[in-house]
């Protein structure tokens, strides 16, 4: 039961940090005079789905965000002002996220928001921050948030977007003449990944032999398997997230699909690989914003991993955890450069910022505020070649940060 004990330690730690966030929020409600007296403190709101199917990823986000805040505070804060993280559970629900965000802005008087984990929830948060003129650093995958329709000057997108993820994954796993069948979760995330893959396929010359949309949160995928097999693909491309990914890959493997086709996913999820084991994921290829194994050739990753290990009993940060770290770090670096929390100055600072905190150089593109960054392509290792319990993936490629992977500003609808 080593898996179990590992999970227990994680649970305790995350719970503590979450409680710290909740406690801080509650003290403001209880003592409004304190809030006024402590205007010095820089408050960052952090809505994320602590409960529900993406809870594992959300908790990692919180831990890493808290690490970024701690590092700034240990160095004396920002111009002497301490930073505080206010964590809220958005329950993976757009309405809940909007309410929590509004509370963070109105009651807790946060200076900026970082967070959200689902593409649809993130858009709900964005609606609120955009209307209130509050800076929002989104750490969930989305394409629409870059487009002119959803864009606001207050919004920065730290996460990869589906377009760049699928472009990088396709570049390293599809070949001309490949036949690709798609199994796709029927909501924004799946739709955007599918669109990205099909666009990349068109460039590479790989053919789509069929696509099946499955309901979000389905537990059984057996009924999709006969039809997927009858499409006779060389590649089965599964675009879904969280437990949907674990369940669908597990059942595809049960049905013997891996003997006949390669399984490719847009994002190879660290926690889901842990949850279903190496045999199920063996040979599955997918993208990632971060993998701890980067540290062998990347000093920023080494520093980030070491700092995380220190505070988390030698555990390593995960992919979605890293978003919490890079997202909060970029915001705080910009606040430091801007000399405070003045919204306009911080926006300018974010636009000018060049940062390298965990994975190599990153920079927000001016037109759509998308973070231009490297994309990893990973392949899940087989059990026999794992050197440790956390040695999960081989890095197939590290696609360097480049606007080549993004849609151009004019394609997104921005004036040239």
């Amino acid at each position: 039961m080593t898996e179990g004990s590992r999970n227990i330690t994680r649970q305790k730690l995350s719970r503590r940090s979450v409680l710290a966030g909740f406690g801080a929020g509650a003290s403001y409600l209880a003592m409004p005079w304190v809030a006024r007296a402590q205007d010095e403190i820089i408050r960052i709101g952090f809505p994320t789905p602590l409960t529900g199917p993406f809870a594992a990823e959300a908790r990692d986000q919180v831990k890493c965000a808290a690490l970024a805040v701690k590092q700034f505070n240990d160095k004396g804060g920002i111009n002497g002002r301490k930073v505080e993280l206010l964590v809220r559970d958005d329950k993976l629900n757009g309405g809940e996220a909007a309410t929590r965000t509004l509370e963070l802005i109105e009651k807790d008087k946060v200076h900026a928001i970082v967070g959200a984990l689902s593409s649809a929830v993130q858009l709900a948060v964005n609606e609120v921050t955009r209307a209130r003129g509050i800076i929002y650093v989104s750490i969930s995958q989305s394409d629409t948030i870059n487009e002119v329709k959803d864009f606001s000057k207050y919004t920065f997108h730290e996460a990869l977007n589906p377009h760049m993820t699928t472009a990088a994954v396709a570049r390293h796993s599809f070949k001309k003449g490949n036949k690709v069948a798609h199994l796709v979760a029927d909501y924004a995330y799946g739709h955007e990944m599918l669109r990205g893959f099909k666009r990349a396929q068109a460039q590479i010359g790989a053919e789509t032999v069929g696509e099946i949309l499955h309901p979000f949160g389905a537990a059984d995928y057996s009924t999709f398997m006969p039809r997927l097999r009858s499409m006779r693909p060389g590649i089965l491309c599964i675009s879904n997230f969280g437990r949907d990914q674990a369940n669908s890959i597990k059942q595809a493997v049960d049905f013997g699909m891996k003997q006949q086709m390669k399984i490719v996913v847009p994002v190879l999820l660290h926690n889901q690989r842990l949850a279903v084991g190496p045999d199920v994921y063996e040979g599955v290829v997918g993208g990632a914003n971060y993998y701890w194994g980067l540290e062998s050739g990347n000093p920023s990753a080494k520093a980030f991993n070491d700092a995380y290990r220190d505070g988390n009993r030698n555990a390593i940060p995960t992919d979605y955890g890293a978003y919490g770290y890079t997202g909060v770090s970029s915001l705080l670096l910009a606040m430091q450069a801007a000399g405070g929390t003045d919204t306009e100055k911080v926006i300018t600072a974010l636009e000018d910022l060049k940062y390298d905190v965990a994975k190599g150089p990153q920079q927000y593109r001016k037109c759509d505020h998308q973070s231009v960054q490297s994309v990893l392509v990973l392949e899940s290792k087989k059990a026999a070649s794992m050197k440790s319990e956390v040695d999960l993936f081989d890095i197939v490629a590290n696609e360097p940060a480049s606007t080549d992977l993004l849609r151009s500003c004019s394609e997104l609808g921005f004036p040239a």
Partner: protein
Amino acid sequence: MDTELILMQLFSGVALGAILVITALGLSIIFGMLGVVNFAHGALFMVGAYAGLWVASLTGSFWWGLLVAPIMIGAFGMIIEFVLVRPLYGRSIDDPLLLTFGLGYVLVEAVRIIFGSDGIPFPTPPQLIGVVDLGVGFFPIYRLFVIGLVILVLLLLWLGLEKTRFGLIVRAGARDPTIMRVLGVDIGKVWLVVFGLGVGLAALGGVLAGPMRSVNPEMGSLVLAEAFVVTVIGGLGSLLGSIVAGLLVGIAISMTALFAPEMATIVMFALMAVVLLIRPQGLFGKLA
């Protein structure tokens, strides 16, 4: 669309139906005999999966987990009945419903505290890994095993209820507990066993589902919904109803998955709505 694919799809539906039957059966038995709507059913399904995993990891064998976990959780179910549910008999039907609803949350949270909320790998037993060629397509050996086991369990249940003295008492007790008491039968003991049996079946469903799905604290929430839909379609309390409805829902999901896959989850609720409109008591239910 060729016939092979449709046949294969039909078979997938029956297989899925078998899994639905096993998850719905415990719920149906407890309601049919005791009149208690067990909202902790999904949570007990999940606890069963964890218990199976725990026993399997201690003994190193899936088979011990499959055998011991349902008995263990069934005994736990008896404690639940004796300590929590029993004081509520004779009160409104809502009271045990609310109690078990809360109990479900407690169980989920307890598992989160003990095992963490990330989920734990539950490997398929090595003897049952792989696929077989059915002539119309490939099918996992493990799922075939599940179908076989479900048939076996149904057969045993039927024999137990129809051919034994205890079964006779259970059936009579479900119809008129007062008369049974007058005849000198300790109906409390019967209810204890029936509740334990229902909970044990939920746990068995959980252990069987473990190698097919990821095992995590929330795995029971969808199962509760599915089990309810199946029992409502079949008629609350009717065992035959649960079996027929489980297969029906499985086939409906499978066929929808073929023609309109994004509707595959909704179709069972649509089916339930249609059945309720035409036959409010369900396919095999009796009018109150």
